[in-house]
């Protein structure tokens, strides 16, 4: 990733001086276009970006919801350009929209930073600066944590099964599962194939419940489940399904997010939802805005890559790590 980042700037949409000329200081407006603007993640990210931008002298920050809809996204992008915003932060609903995004911004002379999900060209090369989360790496962290948990608790018998809940239809979530599978297999190379399961859901908790419950009943010989999911909804849904099946005591569920896990951790009694990979939207929001503002204010070149680290959180440490996001 490092090398591609350094190769990219020439093609990057972040132009040099021209943009800052059209946007005189003190009159800076940023737009944040987020693929699922009604998700807590993006709301938090947007709020952090806005706070940072205003703090650094911007006049306004527009928060735009692309509703997971490519067409809405393109409209939002056009719209932001029409309004003559000074800089754009985006999380595209689909990474295949990268080229259009960069092209449109380039034409309009507006700098763009990718937030959360990278803007990639057809060969998978980044074509704009990026602040965000590395889905694969986060998946790897989850896989590692879970595999180690299993080792510690000796959950390696024939009555143990691993279930990956997947979100095949959301492209940014696919690498998360890939990372989970990869690191799990690395740590537990002898894990049996017939004790490995996959089930797909659409990202909602009750659909995750159904997807998990179906697998649990289909495999009654498995008494201890290890469940990994690409978001917190999936983890919470699987947890409820384990509880309904009476299997929650000996099972473990690990998600990605933090926003539902914190609710789970706040409960008095223990639950199977033991950990999640905390991804920090505040960091993403604040850094993306900060880099943009630095560029607009002072012409400081935008770094090609900034990754928020994935930190595994559990009931024991979540308050410390999440800080006010734990509320």
């Amino acid at each position, binding site marked *: 990733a490092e090398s591609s980042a350094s190769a990219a700037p020439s093609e990057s949409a972040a132009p040099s001086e021209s943009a800052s000329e059209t946007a005189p200081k003190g009159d800076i407006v940023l737009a944040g276009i987020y693929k699922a603007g009604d998700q807590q993640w993006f709301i938090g990210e947007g709020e952090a970006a806005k706070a940072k931008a205003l703090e650094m002298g911007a006049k306004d920050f527009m928060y735009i919801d692309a509703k997971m809809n490519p067409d809405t996204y393109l409209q939002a992008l056009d719209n932001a350009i029409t309004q003559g915003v000074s800089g754009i932060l985006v999380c595209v609903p689909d990474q295949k929209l990268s080229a259009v995004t960069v092209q449109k911004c380039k034409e309009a002379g507006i700098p763009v930073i990718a937030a959360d999900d990278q803007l990639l060209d057809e060969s998978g090369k980044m074509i704009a600066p990026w602040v965000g989360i590395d889905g694969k790496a986060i998946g790897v962290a989850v896989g590692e944590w879970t595999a180690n948990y299993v080792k510690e608790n000796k959950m390696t018998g024939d009555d143990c099964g691993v279930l990956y809940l997947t979100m095949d239809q959301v492209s940014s979530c696919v690498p998360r599962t890939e990372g989970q599978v990869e690191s799990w297999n690395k740590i537990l190379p002898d894990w049996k194939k017939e004790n490995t399961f996959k089930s797909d859901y659409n990202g*909602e908790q009750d659909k995750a*419940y159904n997807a998990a419950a179906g697998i649990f*009943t289909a495999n009654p010989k498995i008494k201890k489940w290890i469940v990994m999911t690409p978001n917190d909804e999936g983890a919470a849904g699987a947890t*409820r399904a384990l509880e309904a099946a009476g299997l929650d005591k000996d099972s473990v569920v690990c998600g990605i997010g933090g926003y539902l896990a914190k609710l789970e951790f706040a*409960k008095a009694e223990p639950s199977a939802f033991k950990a999640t990979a905390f991804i920090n939207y505040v960091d993403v929001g604040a850094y993306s805005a900060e880099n943009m503002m630095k560029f607009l204010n002072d012409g400081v070149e935008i770094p090609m890559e900034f990754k928020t680290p994935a930190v595994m959180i559990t009931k024991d440490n979540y308050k410390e790590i999440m800080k006010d996001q734990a509320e």
Partner: protein
Amino acid sequence: MQNTAIKKKGFDFKSELKRFMKSDNISLIFALIVMITIFSLLNENYRTGRNLISVLTSASLTGLICVGEAMLLIGNHMDLSVGSSAAFSGVLAALLMQRGLPAGATILAVIAVGALTGCCIAFFVTKLKMSSFIATVAMQSIMRGFAFIISNGEGVLITNPTFLKIGSLKIFGLQFLTFPIFFMLLIFVLFGIILKRTRIGREIYIVGGNPTAARLAGISIKKTTYMLFINMNILASVGGMILAARMNTGQPQACVGLEFDGITAAILGGVSNQGGVGSIFGAFLGLAILQGFNNGLIMLNVQSFWQNVAKGALLLLALTFDYLRAKKRKA
């Protein structure tokens, strides 16, 4: 003497059976049996009691919606806002309890809000003459918005143990009869009876079949319409709360497309979307087929992309089958 009595009984049974075989629902029952048999052959755990519980649990919310939508469809309406309303109700309940409201009061309050939502829709439909399609599309957007606004987009945790019971309580101490399942079945039976046996039920058919004739026969279309939408939205509220209890959280983005699952089940079960035709038992069969099928696909671990195709194909197949049977019976 005794002999004839027995004979008579026997005869009755036979004719009952005959009537049943000719009844509208027989092809659905047949389809359901075929489906269960096939899945059971493919996966031995399909026909287990445990799986039945799991199917019924995941059908519990859709079931409530299906009943409400079936009644609306018979009355020549539909409500496309119930997914949003259910999500809103779950969030609202969670928030009210977070503010310290006890479970009972919360449930009542949320039901009241549901009733009010139903009233609003009925008002638009009866007074302002909007089609229920467009009025409820608008409502869908509004309720979803409110669900997000009151929760600020975040899931809201529920810790009230009394409230959480409505997601898990075992009725009569029976392992399989959790409250969500019990309530869903109860609603099916209750509304089955209401629709078939009571005056108000009959009036729904008449209003759906020909509103002008209904009005001139002294039936208040307004009253019936209000009743239908209030009923639907109360069911959605309760369903939303049960889901929230099951999930231990009220989530603003839950239940997208729920209305379609309910409507699809009802139509598959022989309820017409032109009004005046259908039964709750049929709707139940439709629901059973759809949910049983979804569950079977998950159990067989069919890839989710193919699940989409399979679900669509099932619908088409079941309806084609039904058509062919109806045609054959006619000929």
